[in-house]
C-alpha cells in the first residue's frame, strides 16, 4: 500500500495535498473498490465545499462509494479528464487520479501518513 508522507488523510479514505489543494482517494481505497468504472464529480469550479460533505461518487464493478471533502473552501479546479478515464483512479490514485482542488483549510481531523496507515491496519482486523 502506497501512502505518500507529504499528504494528509481522511478516515473516509481521501487524501489532501496542502501544497496545492488537490483531493483524491487513497491507494487503499482504490484497491478495496477494485476496478473503478465510473466517477461523477458532484461539484463545479467556483462552488463552495464543506469538509465532510460529498464531492464525488464512484462506482466500481462491485461497489459504489461517496467521496467526501477533506477540506472546506472554494473549488479551484475539477479534473474533467478523470471523468472520461475513471480507471486512472486505480492506476494513479495520487497523481492523475486527483479529483478536485480546494482553496481552503484542511479539516482538523485529517491524519498524517503514519496515522492513516494505522487506521487502515485497524480496519483489517
Amino acid at each position, binding site marked *: 500500500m502506497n501512502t505518500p508522507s507529504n499528504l494528509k488523510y481522511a478516515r473516509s479514505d481521501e487524501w489532501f495535498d496542502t501544497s496545492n489543494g488537490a483531493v483524491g482517494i487513497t491507494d487503499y481505497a482504490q484497491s478495496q473498490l477494485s476496478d473503478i*468504472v*465510473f466517477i461523477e464529480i*458532484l461539484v463545479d469550479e467556483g462552488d463552495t465545499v464543506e469538509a465532510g460533505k460529498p464531492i464525488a*461518487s464512484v*462506482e466500481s*464493478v*462491485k*461497489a*459504489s462509494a*461517496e467521496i467526501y471533502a477533506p477540506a472546506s473552501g472554494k473549488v479551484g479546479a475539477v479534473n474533467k479528464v478523470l471523468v472520461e478515464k475513471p480507471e486512472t483512479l486505480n492506476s494513479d490514485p495520487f497523481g492523475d487520479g486527483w479529483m478536485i482542488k480546494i482553496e481552503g483549510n484542511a479539516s482538523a481531523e485529517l491524519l498524517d501518513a503514519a496515522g492513516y496507515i494505522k487506521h487502515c491496519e485497524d480496519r483489517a482486523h
Partner: protein
Amino acid sequence: MPPDISSIAKTGRINMTFIPTSPAERDAMLKTVGVKSLDDLFDAVPKKHRFPELNLPPALTEMEAASLLGEMAGSNENVREHMISFLGAGAYNHYVPSVVDHMLRRGEFYTAYTPYQPEISQGTLQAIFEYQSLMSNLTGMEVSNASHYDGATATAEAVFLAYAQFRGKRRKMVVSPGVNPQYRDVIQTYTQGMGVETAAVAEADVTSGPEALIPLIDENTMVVVVQYPDFFGRIHDYEKLSAVAHEKGALVCVVANPTALLMLKTPGEMGADIVVGEAQPFGIPIWYGGPHLGFFTTKKSYVHKMAGRLIGETIDARGQRAYVLTLTAREQHIKRERATSNICTNQGLLALACCVYMASLGKSGLQEVANLCYQKAHYAADQLGRIKGFGLPFKEPFFHEFVLKCPRPASEVNQYLLENQILGGHDLGHDYPALKNHLLIAVTEMNSREEIDTLVEVLKEMGND
C-alpha cells in the same frame, strides 16, 4: 405432522398441518406473551366477530368447478372471437405469431423470477441482451435496459434519470398534454414529495403541437417529455423542440410507439436523450390491461443514471462469449439511497416475448406490419371522415390512430357500437373535457377492410337513427 386431534374435539376444526407450528410450540409462544390460551390471545376481538360465518356456497367437485369457471370465463367477450376492435390508446391489438408462446412456455424460460446468475442462465441473459440490442436499434439510442413494468413506469423512470442527472439542481419538467394521461398520472405519483414541479400548458393548448412547449423550457427544466406519435395519434417532428431543450441544458424524453418507429424517423435522429414506451404491441396480447412491457433506452453517457437491469456481453475464463449483468453498482442493492431508482425488477418473460416477436418477424416483417397499420388506418380515417356529422379535426400526419369528431358524445357512440359487436375507440372526454364528442380510433393489421367498412356502415346508420 398428524392433525391435532385434541383441537378438533375442542373446536371442530383441523389444524392445518402445513403451518409448521406444533401444539407445544404454540403453548410456548402463548406462555411467552403471557396468555393462557388462544381464546385469551384474541380477547380484544369481540366474541361475535371471531370466526365469522363466511356464508360460502356448498363445495364443488373439481369437475363441477371446472365447468362453472369455464362458463364464467366464456361470458367475457374478447376481440378474437366476439368483437371487432378499434380501441388503442396505449394497448394495441396485433397478431402474435405462435412461435412467441412456444418460446415463452419452454421450461428454461418460464419462471416467476428472472435468474441472473451467469453460471446457470446464459440462455435468459442472451435473450435479454438481444432484446436490448433490438430496442436500441429501433429507437436510435445507444443502450437499453432489460425493461420495466410498462410504458407508464418507464416514462416515470426517465424523469428520475433526469432528476439524478442534475442531482436535484433542476426541478422542473415540461410534460406535453399529448403524453398518455395515465403516464402523466404515474409520473405525478412517482415524483410526489420530491419537490418537482410540472410546467402546465394552457387549457386552450392541450391539443397544440410541440411549439406550445417551447416557451415553458427554461434553465430550471430537467426534462421535456413528449409522445411519438402523440396520444391523439399525430406525428410531430421534435427536432426543433429538442434543440431548444438542449440549448437550455434540459434532457428530452420521447415516449414512442414501437410499431410506428418502423416507419418513422427514430427519436434518436430527432435529438432525444431518452426513448421509452410500451412494448406491448410487440408480441404481447392486449389481455385485460396487463401485464405489459416498458422499454427504456438512452445514450451511453446517461447509463450510470439509468434504472433497471442491464445485460452485457463479455468473455468467460475460457475465452468464450458470455453474458452477465453489468454496471450493477448503480443499482439500489449496492448504491442504496443514492441510486436513481429503487426498481431493478424487469419483465423478463415479456421482454423475451418482445424479442422473439422482433426476431421472428425480422426487419421487413415488422415494417410490413407497420405499413399495414398505416394504410388501413388511413383508409378508415378517409371513410369515417366522409360520414355526415363526423369529421377529422386534426390535419397533422398520423400513423395508426386518429381522432374522430362525432355528432354525439363519444360515450353514446361507443354504446351504439357495442350493441353492434364493435369495441369503439377511446372516449377522449375522459381526460380532455373539451373533447367529449371525440373518439380516438386505432386500426391495426388485425382489422380487415370488411371490419372497417362495417364500422363505417354502423356509424352511418347511427346518424340516420
